[in-house]
C-alpha cells in the first residue's frame, strides 16, 4: 500500500513539475516562435508581395477578429500611404491545405500579388504553384471580389499543367480571401488610418 502511494505521488509530482515547466517555457517563447514562423514560413511570401514597401510588413501587423478566429494582416506602405494589406487564406490542395498570402490594395480592391506559404503538394508538380512566378503573377491586378475558378470550370485562372487540383485549391483560397476581405473591409480601413 505504501509503495503504491509512493508511486502515485512521485509520478504525479514529476508530471506536474514537467507540465508546469513546459507551460511556463511555452508562454515565454510563444511570441518569439510566432515571430520566427512569420519570418521564415510566411515572411518570404509577404515580402515578395510587398516588394519595395517603405516599412517592415512583419513588424507592422495587426489582428482583426473574423467570427471566431483572429486574422493577422500585414501592412505595406507605398509612397507614404498605407493602403496595401496582406493576409493569409487557405484552400484544399492535392496533399492537404495550401496556405496562400493574398495582398490587396484597399483603395481600389485590386490584388497586388499572391504567394503560397505552406503546402504539402507533390514536389515538382503541385509545388510549382509556389516556385513558378508566372502562376502567381496572373492574379495581379484582378479585383478581389466574387468567385475564382480555374478555366476548366469556366473561371479565369490558368491552371498549372498537371496540377489541376492544386490550382483549384489556390482558386478556392483566393475566393475565401475575397469573402474575408469583403466582410472585414470596414474594420480594415479603420485600422489602416492609424498608419497614416
Amino acid at each position, binding site marked *: 500500500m505504501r*509503495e503504491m502511494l*509512493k*508511486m502515485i505521488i*512521485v*509520478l504525479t509530482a*514529476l*508530471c506536474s513539475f*514537467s507540465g508546469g*515547466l*513546459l507551460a511556463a*517555457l*511555452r508562454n515565454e*517563447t510563444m511570441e*518569439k*516562435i510566432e515571430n*520566427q*514562423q512569420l*519570418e*521564415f*514560413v510566411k515572411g518570404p511570401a509577404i515580402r515578395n508581395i510587398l516588394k519595395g514597401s517603405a516599412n517592415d510588413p512583419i513588424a507592422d501587423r495587426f489582428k482583426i477578429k473574423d467570427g471566431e478566429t483572429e486574422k493577422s494582416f500585414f501592412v505595406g506602405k507605398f509612397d507614404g500611404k498605407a493602403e496595401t494589406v496582406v493576409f493569409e487564406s487557405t484552400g484544399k490542395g492535392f496533399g492537404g491545405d495550401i496556405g496562400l498570402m493574398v495582398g490587396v490594395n484597399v483603395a481600389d480592391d485590386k490584388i497586388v500579388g499572391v504567394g503560397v506559404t505552406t503546402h504539402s503538394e507533390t514536389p515538382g508538380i503541385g509545388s510549382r504553384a509556389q516556385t513558378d512566378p508566372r502562376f502567381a503573377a496572373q492574379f495581379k491586378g484582378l479585383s478581389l471580389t466574387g468567385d475564382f475558378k480555374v478555366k476548366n470550370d469556366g473561371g479565369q485562372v490558368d491552371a498549372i499543367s498537371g496540377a489541376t487540383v492544386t490550382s483549384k485549391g489556390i482558386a478556392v483560397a483566393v475566393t475565401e480571401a475575397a469573402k474575408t476581405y469583403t466582410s472585414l473591409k470596414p474594420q480594415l480601413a479603420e485600422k489602416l488610418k492609424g498608419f497614416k
Partner: protein
Amino acid sequence: MAKSVTQEFTKGLWAEIPPFRLVLGLCPVLAVTKSVENAIGMGVAVIFVLVGSNVLVSMLRKIIPSKVRIACFIIVVATFVTVVELLMQAYTYPLFLKLGIFIPLIVVNCILLGRAEAFAYKNGIISSFADGLGLGIGFTMSLTALAAIREVFGSGTFYGNQVFGPDFQPFNFMVEAPGAFVCLGLMLCVMNSIGKK
C-alpha cells in the same frame, strides 16, 4: 570498481561511442546526416537532452520507485525534448524546419532511455553528468563524421560550402536513404576492423 569521472566521460568518445559501438539511436543517424549542419544541430539537441535527463534521473534515483521507473524516465526525457523543441523554434527556426519531426523523435531514441536505465539510475550525479556529456559528444561526432562523408560526396559541399568547385556532379545516391544505410554499414565495418587490432 567505480571508474573515475574522466573515464565515464571518455568512454563515450570511443569505447562506447553510441551509433558505432552500442549501435543505438540509428534513426536520427540515418535520417539527419544529409548535411553536416543538420548533424551538428541534432547532436547538440541530443547532448542537451542526454545530460539533462541523466542528471535529473540520477538526482531522483532514490525516490523513483523501481516499478514505475520507465514511466518516470520517459517523462523526464520528454520534458527535456520539448524544451529543446521550443527553444529551437524560438531561436534557430530554419534548423528546426530542416530537422522537423526528428526533434520530437529524440524521445524514443534508445540512447536516452538506455543511459537513464543502465547508468543514471545506478550512479551518482557527477558520473551521470560525465556519462551523458561523453556519450552525447560521441553521438555528435559520429553523426558529423557520417554527415561529412555523405555531404561531401552527395552534394559536393561541406557545411554548405563548395568543396570540389562548380564542375563537380554530386553523387546523389549518398544523400538518398539507401546511401545512408550503405555508408553507415561501411563505417561500422571500418570501426570494427580498427577495434579488432
